[in-house]
């Protein structure tokens, strides 16, 4: 007999070695997340995917599924905390959606909508952060970095490079790149790198792509992040949905 866990009362099978997130995604259960991506090793830092496992709060993207676990995820209490955590990310950086090219394709924004976030709640930090537009094809806007390390992992694990790292401590965390000048142009980074397309926010953007896809026709303009995310992680409820979402904006 296969092993199972329950998430919000739904019985879900899993295979040995799967995390709670893996098992949930495979079964079509969306757990909000920002630093997780099915192609890369889990990180467990954004804490949006925190769930209650037998009464204890755990990151579902890193915590292994074990037979008989009772997992709570889509509860009022957890979603309230997720909204607050998302608001923390919004006030920590400078996220001005109307002026951001990523708007509509942005996971941070989409998660905000998904969690019914209507304001920033907390006072802003107004962090003074810089832009690195040195690279011919890609720019980094540090104002929008949420330290999810997806670019760090994509560069290491998919591109076989080591372009990015997160440096600093506490509220002074920041993204750094692997060059003596500290500029992206002096690294071995290329626009075709996986790391160039992985950023969940508008911190790493391809140049000369602005408004190629008009506002209103972007990924999250017509779909909620839960559908898109499940499709990305391989869940196949119906084929039309997948066909639509797999077409990345940057492939055009």
């Amino acid at each position, binding site marked *: 007999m296969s092993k199972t866990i329950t998430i919000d009362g739904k019985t879900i099978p899993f295979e040995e070695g799967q995390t709670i997130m893996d098992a949930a995604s495979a079964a079509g259960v969306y757990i909000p997340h920002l630093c997780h991506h099915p192609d890369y090793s889990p990180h467990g830092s954004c804490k949006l995917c*925190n769930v209650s496992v037998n009464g204890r709060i755990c990151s579902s993207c*890193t915590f292994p599924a074990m037979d008989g676990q009772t997992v709570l995820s889509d509860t009022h209490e957890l979603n309230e905390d997720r909204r607050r955590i998302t608001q923390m990310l919004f*006030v920590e950086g400078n996220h001005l959606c109307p002026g951001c090219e990523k708007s509509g394709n942005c996971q941070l924004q989409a998660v905000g909508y998904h969690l019914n976030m209507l304001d920033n709640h907390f*006072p802003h930090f107004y962090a003074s952060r810089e832009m690195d537009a040195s690279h011919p094809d890609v720019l980094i806007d540090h104002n929008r970095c949420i330290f999810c390390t997806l670019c760090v992992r994509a560069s290491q694990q998919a591109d076989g490079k080591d372009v990015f790292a*997160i440096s600093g*401590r*506490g509220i002074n965390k920041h993204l*750094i790149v692997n060059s003596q000048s500290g500029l992206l142009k002096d690294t071995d980074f290329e626009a075709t790198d996986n790391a160039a397309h992985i950023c969940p926010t508008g911190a790493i953007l391809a140049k000369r792509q602005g408004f190629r896809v008009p506002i209103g026709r972007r990924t999250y303009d017509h779909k909620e992040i839960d559908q898109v995310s499940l499709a990305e992680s391989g869940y196949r409820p119906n084929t039309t949905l997948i066909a639509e979402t797999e077409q990345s904006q940057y492939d055009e």
Partner: protein
Amino acid sequence: MKQSIQNLAKKYDHQSTHLLQILREIQAIHHFVPEEAIDALVELLHIPRTRIISVIEFYSFLHLSPRGNYELLISDSITDHMSGKKELTHYLSKQLNVAVGSVREDGVVSLDNTSCTGLCDQGPAGLINGYPLTRLDRPRIDCIADLINQQKPLTEWPSELFQVNDNLIKSGLLLEHTIAPGEALKETFKRGLQETLAEINQSGLRGRGGAGYSTGWKWHLCYEGPEEDAFCDVDAQNQLQRYVICNADEGEPGTFKDRVLLNSFADQVFEGMTLCAVITGASKGFLYLRGEYLFLYDKLQSQLAERRQSGLLGNNILGQGFCFDIEICLGAGAYICGEESALIESLEGKPGIPRNRPPYPVTQGYLGKPTVVNNVETFLAATAIALHGGEWFAKIGTEKSKGSKILSICGDCTQPGIYEFPFGTNLKTILAECGADDVLGIQIGGPSGTFVSNQELDRTLAFEDLATGGSFIIFNSRRNILDIVHNFTHFFAHESCGFCTPCRVGTSLLAKQIDKIVEGHGSAGDVVALEELCQIIKKQSHCGLGQTAANPVLTTLERYPELYQSQLKKISYEPGFDLDGALETARRLANRNDAGAHLAQTDASGSLPIASFPPSLAVAEDHE
């Protein structure tokens, strides 16, 4: 410089696991880590420069830009504040002509604050180029300022400036009798390894860092190793590399017991580590010594050398065929490294960021191998138990907290220092012993622990009631609770590693919110907002730091709600900044300072919202 970096890299076998140790040495020579050194290390250690920079920027004692030849740091612990730290720092800053947080123009001296230095029984304290300065007062500061201005090398400074006293006031079960080096090991070999582990289990010894995990069980799990190795044959099992780590990164403000244990009982600690090694099958041990205890380093090294000489460490311990040796690694100013998985990351030469668990260190610790991490006091106790037996230990204490606890007592009492009490002792007894009267409250277990009021003095020291890693800070009735909370809250914001959102952003938001309330800008909803924020940080954070960072607020809010409420203005909303202060630049530009150039935040009674525009602008007021 290149040559010296090459020599350093060679000294550490070109191992990137020793990056932190290498960077510490570079910082000690140059008072920062120069660009050239980073370039050289990229080549020598075969690591990306981002790795080196992220380590430098993580640890408080490492810098990318030059500090002074005399790097002067003043401890920011609450007890230092209670003994006049603020005024003394101001004086010091004036005498040396250098602002806090900066380097003097001539590059000779830099001055800054640092988290608790573990000298709360002899503060106000500081560090100069990593070495402790104790009992600071004006005459001492005059002396220090003179020595710096004359640019006298530290070796020529009067030794009393650096004098660190043990202040061991009350010994109990463990500290009463000294154990000769090797005595417990010999007893262990005589009795048998599994039999000794059984004694440790029987003793009921639980981790002394505060979390209280069963020591015997931890050793047993490490010996067993990961599940996939459990069924391999005995030979393969014995080949499995294991590690023993002694956590001497006591960074909890108010704790200093490990400083004393390592100064006067180090042999017994090393013996405990060796016992653990022979029982679990580890061949390598580390003492992770907090950077603030650099002054103990040479002495500890010579004690290790002596133990090697006497056959208590090395290739054939006491002729029994066991191999084990201990290396001392220094931290570099990061409280988070007291968390065991962050400590392991740090030992691997990385920023001290707590790992995701499972896997736990007992199955996958240092370099992915089974690792025991225990507190200094735990190893000390294990040695005594191996010699005297489990029952000797278990007959003292309470049902769930066997044996004794060594406390670092400081704050408002006549005799701050080290005290050993049986578990189960009540607070009244402890307070009487250290000469504390007129007590307002006690911070037990440091900022991450609990604030206990003077109404709770019948409570006891035990895992069942008040668990503590050893920090015990006493406050008398003249102390302001909000000042204490303010200090602790800023401490956590400063020490958060920044890995997870709730702690990284939450602790900084909490510091802001406390500032707002303490500075008198709080309004009706602000205490509710404060508590909600605390709950999120506590519930959702990645590790113990975040999960306890809100404790100073939560434990005092629970006991003194009226105190918080009294700070609030009776209006529904107050901005978190000073409106009138924001006009200062405009006043300077306009060269005005009359009443009309000022803006009050509330009316005189404090009961109305912002309605007091200067008369010249008060057109809208009539509508109210």
